[in-house]
């Protein structure tokens, strides 16, 4: 199974638009939106829902006021400040509760229940690009990476079932848990960046993360003509780290124009921008082959 994950560190570098453009070009794949906090890929893929289900993760403490003796031990032991006294009674602030169970275990009156927590919803859909696996985390929930792991498992299951050998994923911004989870077992991480101080800074962090996790990476420079200085700095960084730069996209409204139409930039009439994306997709193909990984000698299959 080959897995391509598009990430960027910094948001707004074109991850989703690029993923959608590839989704139109890739023949046999499962499409996956791993940005479960603020997913946008469905706005281009227009999925028709087939199945969905609750994402249960962790627990939430709840104090039974009838059983509570008001001793305040729970308040004292909570490391997250989630138990507060309001109107003379102790209660749990759901947003702050980490689900650690310490209050439950130490309550002498056994007055604290420990409920399953529903943190979001997962979806299995069909699109004009093929199968799609996606989700929506509920607002304020911890983006722990577990939902990302669940989506990846579903995507692999789906791909195996129908005999597809590529999973194409739109990843989350940042370098934290959801990104780490999205890189697990990835064949290649495509790092979308832009030639700006923040683009370079965030690229360095996310590239170092990939290296630490032994995930192969390649770089795509979006808005490449905005700064010759930072473009050169990105190339120098990638050369030093032996990270291939698979292509440049110009500063252009083309991806937004396509997005407004609800389309991928590669769909519809041939445009210079679309042609560039096609060329980048072609550049990526050898990097997704097992032979390339074997040659690189770093990746464990």
């Amino acid at each position, binding site marked *: 199974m080959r897995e391509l994950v598009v990430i960027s*560190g*910094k*948001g*707004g*570098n074109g991850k*989703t638009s690029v993923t959608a453009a590839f989704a139109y070009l890739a023949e046999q794949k499962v499409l996956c939106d791993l940005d479960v*906090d*603020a997913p*946008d890929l469905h*706005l281009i893929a227009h999925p028709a829902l087939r199945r969905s289900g609750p994402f249960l993760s*962790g*627990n939430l403490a709840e104090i039974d006021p009838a059983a509570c003796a008001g001793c305040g031990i729970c308040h004292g*032991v909570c*490391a*997250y400040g989630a138990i507060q006294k309001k109107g003379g009674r102790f209660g749990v602030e759901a*947003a702050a509760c*980490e*689900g*650690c*169970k*310490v209050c439950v*275990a*130490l309550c002498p009156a056994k007055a604290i229940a420990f409920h399953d927590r529903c943190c979001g919803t997962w979806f299995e859909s069909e699109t004009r690009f093929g199968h799609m696996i996606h989700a929506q*985390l509920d*607002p*304020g*929930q*911890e*983006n722990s*990476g577990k939902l990302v792991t669940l989506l990846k498992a579903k995507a692999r299951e789906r791909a195996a079932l129908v005999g597809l050998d590529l999973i194409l994923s739109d990843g989350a*911004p*940042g*370098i*934290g*848990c959801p*990104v*780490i989870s999205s890189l697990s077992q990835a064949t290649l991480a495509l790092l979308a960046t*832009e*030639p*700006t*101080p*923040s683009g370079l*800074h*965030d690229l360095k*962090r996310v590239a*170092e*993360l990939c290296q*630490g*996790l032994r995930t192969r990476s390649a770089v795509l420079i979006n*808005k490449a003509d*905005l*700064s010759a*200085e*930072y473009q050169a700095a990105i190339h120098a960084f990638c050369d030093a780290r032996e990270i291939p730069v698979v292509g440049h996209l110009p*500063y252009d*409204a083309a991806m*937004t124009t396509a*997005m*407004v139409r*609800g389309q991928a930039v590669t769909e519809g009439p041939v445009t210079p921008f679309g042609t560039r994306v096609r060329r980048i997709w072609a550049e990526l193909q050898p990097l997704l082959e097992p032979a390339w990984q074997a040659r690189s000698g770093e990746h464990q299959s």
Partner: protein
Amino acid sequence: MILAVASGKGGTGKTMVSDSLASVWQHPVLAVDLDVEEPNLGLFLRPEPVRDEAACLEVPVLDPARCNLCGACAQLCQFKAISLMGAQLLVFPDMCHGCGGCMRVCPQGAIQKGQRVLGRVETGLTASGIRCLTGRLRIGEAMSPPLIAKVRQHLRAMADEAALDVIIDAPPGVSCQAMMAVQDVNVILLVTEPTPFGLHDLRLAWQAFRSLGKPMTVVINRAGLGDEGVQSFCREMGLQVLMEIPFRREIAEHYARGGVLAEFDEEMRDLFTGLARKIAAMAGAGGHHA
């Protein structure tokens, strides 16, 4: 007075708006980067470093000499940070959420306090007198919320000590990291762009933050690009659009040089000065100058 600059979607210009507001703010101000996974505010404000310290989480360290393998700690741990495998107790400090439960339930006192480095907390001061505070997650560290909590403690201490207003550059999204950043603020400024992605994520942010009952207002970046969806949404929900930043190549190039947008030209400076004044007025009733 505390302002959070937030957005559902990443890359809409939160940092650009935060650094510009800080640079025209009338009252002494503390600029805080709570986007600890990818902190960028300092790249534009360029503070001189004042302090740089490690932020740590309290995690268990086992004293095998005292452990009698009763398994109480492993039974309590909800995060798979401690597990009893046959006649061996294994501790995985990377999985620990720092609840301290294992130390409390161990009858033998066999679990001591150790530390896992979450990242750095950095403070600085710019030439023009803006105080800066940044959290920087260690690369490879999975959990950002505990580091955000540490930075917020510093924020309160620094703001109270010198009676500073605070401008927070929040993390993207609407998960608990973003909610933590907007919790104690007087005004939430949502930065968006007039595109279908911008609208979708603005709606997510508005829905998530609405329950906090705080004044919310909008800045539209890259105005002129995309479509009318964001404007219609803001009208419909009664969200005031305080400023529009035009979609112009020169602005993107200025940003790519590391420039603060309020210093782009006289007109931009006036626009941000006006924006700062309106935000301060919004905070007026609920806000405070300590």
